[in-house]
């Protein structure tokens, strides 16, 4: 029983991390139709900057993480500017550009932080629930993610800026007619994606050390979760993230950790193919 609780809670925590990454994908895709392959990179950057802030600059927790998140947001803006800033870049070209940015980021990351994994302890210690030893960090991840995702929901439905973004997402042409600068909103979406990715990074890095090439695994997991909502729904992204995280934990716990990838990605593929069948247009 305690094992089950262990897997459920740790899976929930990781899943919330996936949900944050997924929401970054969703935020950017809804507005720009671009899939930001560098979403994982933004998480890694956020975590790395927070780690440096803690160790080199000696900043306290909270401030260091905030710095990491902001840095990731800035990086997101930069990535967005490069990926969609130029007129006439089709969305698929933008996807490939984000791919290139993720690889180029490796060079920058190695130069600044080296090629070994990095981690830090945020909320130390563990607590016991139903006999299971659980990291306190899990609670932080779950709590912070839920707050962030709630905030996202409020932002998109109740604020002017958010509604403008939603308008862009549903009909770019009409949005432009109403006077919304679609390209600038797209940049903001990238910035938002950066913030969300950075938050995921600073929350996950105490649980699993990240290195410069951790971005692919994170991006793929985040994308898999985002697929649950067709890349457009934040709520479904949360559901997807949690389902994925818990499923992975259960597989690792009761079966074998090495099968996690196959199951998670297989699920994603099946979902994508299923969703495509429902559409009239073929590739």
């Amino acid at each position, binding site marked *: 029983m305690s094992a089950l609780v262990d897997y459920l809670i740790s899976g929930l925590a990781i899943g919330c991390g996936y949900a944050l990454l997924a929401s970054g994908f969703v935020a950017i895709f809804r507005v720009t139709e671009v899939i930001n392959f560098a979403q994982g990179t933004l998480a890694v950057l956020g975590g790395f900057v927070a780690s440096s802030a803690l160790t080199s600059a000696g900043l306290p927790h909270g401030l260091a993480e905030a710095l990491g998140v902001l840095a990731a947001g800035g990086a997101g803006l930069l990535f967005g500017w490069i990926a969609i800033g130029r007129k006439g870049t089709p969305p*698929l070209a933008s996807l490939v550009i984000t791919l290139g940015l993720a690889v180029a980021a490796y060079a920058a990351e190695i130069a600044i932080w080296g090629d070994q994994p990095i981690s830090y302890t945020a909320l130390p210690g563990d607590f016991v629930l139903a006999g299971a030893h659980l990291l306190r960090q899990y609670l932080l991840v779950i709590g912070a993610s839920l707050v962030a995702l709630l905030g996202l929901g409020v932002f998109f439905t109740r604020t002017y800026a958010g509604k403008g973004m939603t308008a862009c997402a549903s009909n770019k042409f009409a949005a432009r007619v109403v006077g919304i600068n679609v390209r600038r909103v797209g940049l903001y979406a990238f910035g938002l994606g950066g913030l969300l990715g950075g938050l995921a990074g600073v929350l996950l890095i105490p649980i699993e050390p990240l290195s410069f090439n951790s971005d692919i695994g994170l991006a793929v997991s985040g994308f898999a979760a985002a697929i649950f909502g067709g890349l457009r729904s934040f709520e479904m992204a949360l559901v997807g993230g949690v389902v994925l995280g818990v499923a992975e934990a259960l597989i690792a716990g009761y079966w074998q950790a090495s099968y996690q*990838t196959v199951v998670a990605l297989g699920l994603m593929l099946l979902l994508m193919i299923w969703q495509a069948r429902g559409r009239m247009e073929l590739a």
Partner: protein
Amino acid sequence: MRSATAVAWAGGIVAAAVTLLLPLWLSPANLTVYTLAGLYAVTAIGLSLLMGYAGQASLGQAVFFAIGAYTVAAASLHGVPTALALVAAPLLAAAVAALVGIPILRLRGHYLAFATLAFQLIVLSVISNTAFLGGGIGFAAIPSLGVNGAVLTSARGFAWLSWAVTAVAMVLALNLIRSRPGRALRALATSEAAAESAGIAVVRYKLAVFALSAGFAGFAGGIYAFFIGYLSPDSFPVELSIEFVVMAVIFGLGSVWGALLGAAGISVLVQVLNQVGTAPGMPEYMPTLLNYAAYGVTLVLIMVFLPGGLLPALRSLWARVAGRRGDPGGPVGPGQGAGGPSAVALGTALASALRLSPAKDAGEPTPEHARRQ
């Protein structure tokens, strides 16, 4: 322009002769670079055909390279004659592609990109968990490629084999482009709707190109296995797939020469950077860093400024230098000239083939896109 074609032919023969003689002068380290460049070129050609003609973004080309390599390794280590194993490699890769293509080629552009990536990760994970395929440890001491007792072990021998395989792949690809199915493919790349209305079985052609592209990669992978003699799932990471994309994209998708130049050019660039990175005083990780920087920055620069690739840009430069009339630099229709597809058209065709219909997406209108649908 008969003289132009003759010049082109002569030039092609010269290039072939020069590259054929090169292994006589290269040091062993550079022979390795040469050999791998050829194998990567074959894979890049396949990918270039796929992305340029079938308009399918593939971030997982390395998986077919891996399937070819694993076929050779598993088969020859379990007693299959090495030459037979090498023949099986592209066939198995193509078969897997055909099977997997049926469901996933229906996906839209960005979904397909991630689907190919996911497929690579799944295959690598399955291999890691399968003892018969070497598991996470992989295969070592792969037998040497040989027929009737004669085995290939010398570095120079492998370099020439690589040359031969590249030459054959180029001839195949160029002939395919010029053939009737090739023209159908070009039509496909420009506009699927139009192609379909002209009676072309879009799905079947896409599958065929996917399988062919996988076959190219599989054959190259098979030779790679004999060459290095060792492989494991870690030999075929996602980064390798991205490297193939860079090679295919630099000079222009859909161009066979472009893919060759992309592979050769990147390989040379990486070697140069290696020399720079291992100079005294440089930190240990410099070569790795420069490697990633080269791939990433190249990809970003090309996709932002020259998504059609370098060849069209060079062509317009040449035209201006030679003072020719008629600027070939602008977007042109497919099938121009005796058989050379316009890399520009195909580069943008990649994007247009995957766009949503105009009503749903009134994005940033540009001259090229306005001309499409």
